[in-house]
């Protein structure tokens, strides 16, 4: 019996079997349960999914989520690109200082950061008071309880995540390639546009994917800085779970997010090797 088993399965699998079982029991199991809930609660069928087309509110929430995440991604990656460029091309000593500062920002909880923005962006916050004091504005600007506030909070949280894949990508570039471009008569702008930027596309894709996927699950920041006016999927799911107790709808939205993320990864994998995108060996 044992022999028959090992003939078909490499004995190496036996070593990882306990961990495999833990993953199945505590991760894949509940995940399957959610899939199951989405088609059985409150009654069997695709009723939950029909709400997607029937309910305007749901469609609006999904659109808000998508738009917020897309804008967050664009700004985070753009800022992250500049930071990564500065870090990669800085002097070694400065590079270490910059990397430390970047990593410190990872340690500060999203809740703390969001409340910090609350202090800064409020009507009597530092930003409004400061701008009034130097005469830039004469009435406080509404930075909060709207989409702008949510975006500021989310971009701020996401920039460090955007930096890391870009840095990993930029560090693999051969500086001689850029020198060759200049030697052949290309100025700085041409070299950046025609050589540097194309060579950092894998980093841009990885960074965008990472930021977009993480943004989809944002809960605290939209809830606090959006002041209930910017309802994103994560917050809506929590309301369904805890307030209206419509677990079927929540499960359906969760499933939708999961499928959305997997679909994104699949589309990307058609264009490039995902392992290369996430740093598994430089593409040449």
């Amino acid at each position, binding site marked *: 019996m044992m022999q028959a088993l090992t003939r078909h399965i490499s004995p190496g699998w036996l070593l990882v079997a306990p961990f495999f079982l833990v993953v199945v029991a505590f991760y894949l199991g509940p995940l399957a349960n959610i899939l199951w809930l989405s088609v059985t609660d409150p009654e069997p069928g695709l009723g939950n999914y029909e709400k997607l087309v029937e309910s305007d509110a749901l469609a609006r929430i999904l659109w808000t989520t998508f738009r917020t995440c897309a804008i967050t991604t664009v700004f985070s990656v753009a800022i992250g690109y500049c930071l990564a460029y500065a870090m990669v091309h800085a002097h070694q000593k400065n590079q270490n200082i910059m990397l430390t500062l970047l990593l410190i920002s990872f340690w500060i909880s999203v809740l703390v950061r969001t409340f910090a923005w609350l202090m800064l962006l409020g009507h009597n916050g530092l930003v409004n008071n400061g701008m009034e004091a130097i005469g830039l504005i004469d009435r406080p600007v509404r930075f909060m309880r709207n989409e702008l506030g949510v975006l500021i909070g989310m971009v701020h949280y996401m920039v460090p995540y955007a930096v890391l894949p870009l840095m990993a990508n930029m560090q693999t570039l051969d500086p001689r390639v850029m020198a*060759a*471009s200049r030697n052949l008569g290309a100025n700085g702008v*041409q070299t950046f546009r025609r050589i540097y930027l194309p060579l950092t596309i894998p980093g841009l894709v990885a960074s965008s994917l990472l930021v977009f996927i993480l943004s989809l699950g944002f809960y605290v920041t939209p809830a606090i800085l959006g002041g209930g006016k910017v309802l994103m999927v994560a917050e809506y799911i929590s309301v369904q779970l805890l307030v209206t107790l419509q677990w079927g709808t929540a499960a359906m939205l969760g499933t939708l997010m999961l499928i959305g993320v997997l679909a994104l990864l699949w589309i990307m994998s058609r264009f490039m090797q995902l392992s290369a995108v996430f740093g598994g060996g430089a593409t040449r």
Partner: protein
Amino acid sequence: MAEAAKGGLSLTGLTKRFGGVVAVDDIDLEIQRGEFLTLLGPSGSGKTTLLMMIAGFLDISAGDILLDGASIKTVPAEKRNFGMVFQGYALFPHMTVRQNVGYALDVRGRPKAEIEARVDEMLELVQLQDFGHRKPGQLSGGQQQRVALARALCFAPPVLLLDEPLGALDKKLRIEVQDQLKDIHRRVGTTFIYVTHDQEEALSMSDRIVIMQNGRIEQLGTPTELYERPRTRFAAGFLGKSNFLDLDDGTYALRPEKIDLAPAGRINGAARLSGTISDITYFGAMRKYMVAVEGRQPIEVDVDAWRNPHELQQGQAVDLAWADHAAVRLDES
């Protein structure tokens, strides 16, 4: 394709300091247009630093660079119009061979038809006509090297700088590419400035060689001059092999292949030294004998393997002889 009416460079008092370290130390050098000049030296001798200053990638600490009489000290790298073949080639990995080769003309905004025609011409020059649509990653090392050469020559630069371009190739391919390089140099007539630490490359290709050490020019001359008349111990040891003999009036350099070797008492002419064979190594074309001489460094003698009339054995007593002009007296240093 005699398009190089320009390309004479003169370096005057050229110096590069990195902090307190002097990498290139007050170099004066005239480079003729159309010349194949090699900068030869060990790593750290300043040869690459010198090349990077000529290319415009490094600022000059002191001195000047003149191209056909006009200073180019303040001209940025992209405006110097010098072709360059980089160590490791530095091809653009995301572009095809054709795009790589045409890049210099493309960024100068030349018309498409002109670029295409010129790229065809260059690919023919380096015999890569069939590889235009491949990416550099799909080419062998030797082919990449030729793409780099075509790319650097495409805009007809007056000067081509080559930074150890054959370093990544295996030995057999290197000799083949040396011949191609020499041929291309003859055909385009551009001034070639070639950096290498490989003395065989330097000897076989150059019109003139600059031997560098510690940021200074150790000796400058044609390959024959440098090989036959080395002035310093370093020049004699770095370019080819040399025995060094301390005689009454100074140190002499003596090439191993210029020494006659015969069993004791049977040498033609007067024996200059006597000793015993301590080691014999066979290289196919020649045999290397190490001869232990009382009170001196062991002396290396290279003999064509087919002329081994005496069938010399290890441990045998031998006499050594050489012509007067074979031993070259070195400057004291």
